[in-house]
């Protein structure tokens, strides 16, 4: 029936559009509301906590670190982050106490009657202060993780040009429309967690450490994630669990927008120094990249984000010598974490701005310089192995350049207008041998009526899992897509298919599901028609064979990775993008409008074209926001204006028509979710450089920055 490749209507569209779908905060609830009392200082020791004697706290549930029966550590990659501060706080907003009460109003009053005294110390508020060891926050050197890698040897050739530039990227807020929300259900001494999340098994693992026993975790319909609900929900689930356990009642915690923006994880800011040597044609002979990212107060996922920075730092260009030195540092700011692109948008902004700077330095066209540096059959990437995607990359580049009319517009731009390009890749799935460490497994179950249920931990958060995975299974079984559904991800009931991150759901989980479906098909024997299928199911069910079929990830034999040498296949495969932006600058108020955006992608087989287009359009919108308007202001370690009125997101009139093309659709399906976040910022910045002839090396490029550059 071939449902893969068809724009099947999303299975959850109707219940979302009529408002009947229940997100966490919409679930029936008769319990207590939870709230978090947080540190008011960025760094120091807690001296005393005082509960105002004139206020009656007797009906307020209060939890502090002493109530934790298991380990007071949110174990992500390491265990440095406590659920609740004990003696010391390391960032503004660090949780110290938890409160619960039936009335939100009384909860607010109680919070106003708690005073925390501190011995404040000078905080470390920037990457520079961290590296200068203003305070020792982590290890000997404040470095959570450092990666150094060298490929090839420095060129002996003389007479090369050289260029050194520094580019910076800021924090970015995920701004999922549904704030973080978690519900802990109490049932006769046992607690069950239901909430907004990307990774139920991550939350289960974190709670197992906290509680000293396994806690059932179920994903509720999730109103967007973008990485913001990858690592953070473990914390809020822990708070809900602790309050629920102590109160013996259901507890719900829903952040308001202010709390969500101020204290949850963001995209890591970065400082990127690019030093290149190239000849008169713009051909790269040497590239040295120095990357520093700000991890915030705790390790969280920074080491993995950093690895992704390194693997994408040089793009896919052919260069005989590439050196990358990278580090993630500690500061006394709220921890940063996962965000769509996961380290790649930062460095791809760097390398793609740098390619344009090389072109400007030589007076050449940016497209010509990129063309001259396209990889070939022998080119190796930053991790020392051949770039397998070289032919596809050239196809994509040539198609995008030709169809967009890039050269003609570049050579004769209209007044106050410019055109820019970004050519980039995105590793799909986990970095290195990460997928083999996840050891994901999937399960499908045959029901007596012939329908099939997918049982995996991969979640729907807007990207289309509930529709795409059934398409893949239905395709493998030659069934109508309506015969296949997904069970609600619940750690007690589904297989651990790994987290819903890194563009891995369709590529990795989808592939495993197709294998599991293949086993079911073999068990059923031949069937060509719906009637024959029903007969085969009846026959098989009678035979008493197993009704569940599974598959587990096995690393392909040709994937090799040495983490210590940072050598090998950084990823099993890469998605590719060539994005072209045209911008117009208002010479009076310096506002920048993206007037056209062409997004050419190669992600192999597209499972659902309409959903895939939607992913690209949404990612491009986020990327344009990152480029032009999304700006979080931190003052003394505090998010200064944590509101959507200050942190401006693109709205419908702010965005151009985004034209989406998919090329190379015959290969296996690769991840698509992250790719469209990677390219827009450089394409837009390069277009602005073209329009105004000024350097735009720091994001976001607000009207103030444009005015400054035009002075």
């Amino acid at each position, binding site marked *: 029936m071939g449902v893969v490749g068809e724009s099947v209507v999303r299975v959850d569209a109707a219940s979302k*559009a009529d*408002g009947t779908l229940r997100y966490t905060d919409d679930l029936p609830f008769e319990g207590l509301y939870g709230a978090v009392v947080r540190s008011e200082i960025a760094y120091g020791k807690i001296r005393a906590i005082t509960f105002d004697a004139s206020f009656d706290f007797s009906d307020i549930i209060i939890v502090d670190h002493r109530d934790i029966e298991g380990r007071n550590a949110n174990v992500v990659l390491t265990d440095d982050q406590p659920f609740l501060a004990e003696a010391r706080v390391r960032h503004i907003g660090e949780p110290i106490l938890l409160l619960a009460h039936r009335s939100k109003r009384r909860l607010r009053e109680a919070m106003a009657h708690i005073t925390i005294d501190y011995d404040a110390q000078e905080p470390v508020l920037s990457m520079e202060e961290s590296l200068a060891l203003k305070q020792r926050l982590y290890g000997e050197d404040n470095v959570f993780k450092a990666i150094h890698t060298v490929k090839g040897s420095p060129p002996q050739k003389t007479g090369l040009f050289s260029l050194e530039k520094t580019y910076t990227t800021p924090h970015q807020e995920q701004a999922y*429309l549904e704030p973080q929300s978690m519900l802990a259900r109490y049932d006769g001494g046992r607690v069950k967690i239901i909430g907004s999340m990307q990774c139920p098994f991550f939350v289960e693992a974190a709670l197992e450490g906290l509680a000293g026993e396994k806690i059932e975790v179920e994903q509720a319909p999730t109103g*967007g994630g973008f990485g913001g609900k990858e690592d953070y929900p473990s914390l809020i689930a822990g708070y809900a669990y602790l309050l629920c356990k102590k109160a013996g009642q259901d507890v719900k915690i829903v952040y308001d927008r202010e709390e969500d923006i101020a204290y949850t994880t963001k995209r890591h800011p970065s400082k990127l120094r690019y030093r290149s040597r190239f000849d008169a044609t713009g051909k790269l002979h040497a590239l040295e990249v120095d990357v520093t990212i700000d991890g915030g107060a705790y390790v969280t996922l920074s080491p993995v984000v950093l690895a992704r920075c390194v693997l994408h730092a040089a793009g896919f260009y052919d260069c005989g010598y590439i050196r990358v030195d990278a580090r993630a540092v500690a500061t006394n700011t709220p921890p940063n974490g996962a965000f769509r692109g996961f380290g790649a948008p930062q460095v791809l902004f760097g390398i793609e701005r740098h390619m344009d700077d090389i072109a400007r330095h030589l007076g050449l066209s940016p497209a010509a310089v990129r063309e001259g540096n396209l990889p070939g059959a022998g080119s190796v990437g930053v991790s020392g192995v051949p770039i397998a995607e070289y032919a596809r990359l050239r196809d994509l580049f040539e198609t995008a350049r030709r169809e967009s009319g890039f050269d003609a517009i570049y050579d004769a731009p209209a007044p106050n207008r410019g055109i820019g390009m970004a050519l980039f890749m995105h590793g799909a799935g986990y970095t290195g041998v990460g997928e083999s460490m996840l050891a994901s497994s999937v399960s499908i179950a045959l029901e007596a009526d012939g329908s099939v249920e997918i049982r995996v931990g991969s979640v729907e958060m807007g990207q289309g899992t509930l529709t795409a995975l059934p398409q893949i299974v239905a395709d493998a079984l030659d069934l109508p897509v309506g015969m296949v559904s997904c069970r609600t991800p619940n750690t007690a009931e589904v297989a651990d298919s790994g987290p819903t991150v890194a563009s891995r759901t369709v590529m990795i989980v989808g592939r495993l599901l197709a294998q599991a479906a293949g086993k079911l098909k073999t068990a059923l024997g031949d069937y060509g028609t719906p009637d024959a299928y029903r007969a085969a199911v009846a026959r098989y069910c009678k035979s008493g064979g197993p009704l569940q079929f599974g598959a587990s990830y096995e690393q392909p034999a040709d994937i090799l990775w040495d983490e210590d040498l940072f050598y090998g296949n950084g990823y099993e495969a890469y998605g590719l993008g060539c994005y072209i932006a045209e911008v117009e600058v208002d010479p009076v108020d310096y506002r920048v409008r993206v007037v056209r955006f062409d997004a050419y992608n190669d992600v192999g087989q597209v499972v659902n074209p309409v959903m895939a287009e939607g992913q690209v359009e949404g*990612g491009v919108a986020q990327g344009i926001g990152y480029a032009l308007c999304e700006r979080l202001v931190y003052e003394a370690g505090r998010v200064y204006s944590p509101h*959507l009125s200050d942190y401006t997101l693109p709205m419908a009139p702010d965005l151009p028509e985004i034209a989406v093309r998919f090329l190379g659709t015959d290969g296996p399906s690769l991840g698509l979710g992250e790719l469209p976040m990677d390219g827009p910022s450089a394409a837009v910045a390069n277009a602005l450089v073209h329009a105004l002839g000024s350097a735009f090396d720091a994001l976001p490029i607000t009207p103030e920055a444009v005015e400054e550059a035009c002075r």
Partner: protein
Amino acid sequence: MQITCTINGKIHRFDCAPETRVLDLVRDAGMTSVKAGCGEGECGACSLFVNGRLVNACLLLAPQIHDAEIVTLEGLQEETAAIRESFAEHGAVQCGFCTPGFVLRAYDYLSHGGERSEEAIRAALDGNLCRCTGYKKIVEAITKVKS
């Protein structure tokens, strides 16, 4: 204080503090299509009609709806059927959290004779935030609603 209003044609009486947000009142009354997105009138996820005007429920306090007629998406299922169908068909729904607000915005726009051009629709959507779609499919869905 005592507040009386109709919500989707049914009379509701609330005994609440005067600073209670209308957003919380209607959600507590079971109208959970009204979502709490930003709390300051920026995102439009809590859109509902008060005496025929589309407003953000997070910006209204309880006394402002005394004796008013409130209509939420729950009360407009028949009227919005074609819009919702178009949203589904054209891929305008992703995470869905903003969708009820967009459906009501589209309904308000089209029922006031809004022009079916992309530019006009984009301008009409200025008060609603969507972080998933990039708006293109929402605009397309509204353009193509069957009348």
